């Protein structure tokens, strides 16, 4: 392995990238677009659920109860209904996701201590939103009835009720429970995986298509020098992408960064080596830019999105698919990034993931070296 030849190949490859706006686009613009797009759009938090109310009671008590909903950031009162027909139309037209029906005898029931039932009608077609909305509605209702109980005890001169059990939740790592904080580190991993493989998937195939490979294999350049030289520029682009992603996370999305920056860069360089080599391997085997980029997209995009635990928890997947996720490299990088980013974990707790990424990179690189022939078939 001669450094001079490696650097000659790397320099040439840099020039290709600089002179081809498409590869610059793939390398820099697409990752940024993806970060912004998903950073803004991909949120699992449900708030401001549109709500309609049919208040049959029309009393101060019912208005206080409803006020509890409209004051909450989880609900947005979008209208009053005068009957079930109107509720049905509001939900069908998707103006409302949840409807409350307050009965005529609401105030009397509350005042007498008999209690009252309020009906909640929920659009269950999006089960995720529906269950969140239901949970929020129960919470608002519970706090209203606690308040009523306390008030009536105080009025009746009764002593405060003995303290029951009280759950004091304390959320670690992502204390605001912002789903974006959870998604963003994973998003970096997914973007890096897709971009890295896509970039290198073109490089060897292009040399075959343009005809330069025939010239190149007639020179003393070795396979190792060729692969390494071609990896270097894309590695630099990948690292630049990581830097941009961290800056976007810091300054645009306010993602808290608790871990050590060097650890993120170190684990990313190992991950990149594997992802770039995978693209290179695909390029070497197919010898066609079109085929190679398609395969690289399918082989990285789908598993990285669906099976890495980036959005969909692996623990909820059927067992055979859970097993399969063990060979998805993005999964380990997602875990690594989340661990470092949100929990500030050190290498000691993440060494398994890091070792897997290292082994994957070594394996794919070896395969690529083995498959690259300095011969025309």
């Amino acid at each position, binding site marked *: 392995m001669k450094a*001079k030849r490696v650097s*000659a190949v790397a320099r*040439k490859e840099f*020039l290709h990238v600089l002179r081809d706006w498409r590869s610059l686009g793939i390398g820099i613009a697409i990752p940024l677009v993806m970060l912004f797009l998903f950073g803004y759009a991909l949120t699992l938090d449900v708030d401001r659920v549109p709500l309609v109310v049919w208040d049959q009671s029309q009393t101060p008590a019912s208005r206080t109860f409803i006020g509890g909903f409209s004051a909450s950031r989880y609900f947005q009162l979008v209208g009053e209904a005068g009957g079930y027909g109107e509720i049905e139309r509001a939900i069908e037209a998707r103006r409302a996701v949840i409807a409350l029906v307050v009965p005529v005898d609401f105030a009397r029931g509350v005042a007498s201590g008999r209690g009252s039932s309020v009906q909640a009608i929920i659009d269950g077609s999006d089960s995720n939103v529906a269950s969140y909305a239901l949970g929020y509605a129960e919470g608002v209702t519970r706090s209203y009835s606690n308040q009523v109980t306390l008030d009536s005890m105080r009025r009746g001169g009764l002593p405060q009720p003995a303290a029951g059990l009280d759950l004091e939740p304390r959320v670690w790592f992502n204390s605001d429970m912002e789903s974006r904080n959870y998604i963003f580190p994973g998003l970096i991993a997914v973007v890096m995986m897709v971009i890295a493989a896509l970039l290198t998937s073109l490089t060897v195939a292009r040399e075959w298509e343009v005809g*330069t490979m*025939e*010239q190149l294999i007639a020179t003393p350049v070795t396979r190792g020098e060729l692969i390494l030289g071609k990896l270097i520029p894309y590695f630099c682009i990948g690292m630049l992408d990581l830097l941009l992603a961290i800056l976007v996370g810091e300054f645009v999305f306010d993602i808290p960064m608790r871990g050590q920056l060097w650890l993120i860069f170190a684990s990313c360089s190992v991950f990149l080596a594997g992802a770039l080599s995978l693209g290179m391997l695909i390029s070497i085997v197919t010898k066609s830019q079109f085929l190679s980029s398609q395969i690289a997209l399918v082989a990285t995009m789908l598993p990285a999105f669906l099976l890495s635990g980036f959005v969909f928890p692996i623990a909820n997947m059927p067992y055979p698919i859970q097993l399969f996720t063990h060979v998805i490299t993005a999964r380990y990088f997602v875990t690594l990034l989340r661990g470092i980013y949100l929990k500030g974990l050190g290498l000691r707790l993440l060494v398994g993931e890091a070792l897997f990424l290292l082994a994957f990179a070594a394996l794919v690189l070896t395969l690529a070296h083995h498959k690259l022939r300095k011969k025309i078939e």
Partner: protein
Amino acid sequence: MAPSEAIKTNALQKRFGKVTAVEELSLGVKSGELFGLVGSDGAGKTTTLRMLAGIMDPTGGETLVLGRNMAQEAEEVRGDIGYMSQRFGLYPDLTVLENLRFYADIHMIPARERGGRIDELLGFSNLTPFKERLAGKLSGGMKQKLGLACALVHRPRVLFLDEPTNGVDPVSRRDFWRILHGLLGEGVTILVATAYLDEAERCHRVGLMHRGRLLACDTPKGLKGLMTGGVLEFTTEEPRRAVRLLSADFPSGSVALFGEKLHLYYADDPEEARERAIASLKKAGLEAPRVRQVEPSLEDLFVSLLR
């Protein structure tokens, strides 16, 4: 193998599935020789050159270049071999200078020699004024000269050129051959594949390839000696019609059209052939052609060998 033999093949064969591209090809090229491999498209020239350059493995036989078997030991002699493929094999998005520098570095030319060597190559290929131009924006002739310059950057001892002047204008072709003859002065062994027979005449020795086989191999003069009989050149008003008429009267392959002139190959008696031809044309109402006996060219030989 004699040490003076830079290139040698023994019963070389290449099959792609059921298609045979090269069959039983044996030839030797002496050190310092300019050897032309001539044949039409699909004759197997490119496949032969690829095997000689060690970038394609034969399915039979062997190739030795500078004493190395190119199927197994190609990497040992890469530094002594220059190869220029038929397709323009340089990076179109790199400039002339960047292409040359890339190949110089790949061949480990030391930094202090690189500049001088590149200037020298730019000079003799007349590319100096275009050194900052992107290779993809060069004319056909300049592309080929750049390709040659890149193949020569490491001063190879053996040079393989695959149809280097294909589609190149006549002036650039002449330039190109001037450069090749200059290289012979440096002792470089050159094997050039070409479909142009006039180029083959500039070679020391020529191998005629057809359908994967070597039909004949000798000096241009010696090859012409292979031709039995001679060539009569006819100049007529209607050469195409004359070809049709004579083809009917003479054995197949005896008549060929070269531009507006018609060549008739005779086996032994020129007078008998001339009279028969004129009579046959007169009978069809064509006016009397001008006829003269000409020296056979390689092209004539090629046509008559394929008869």
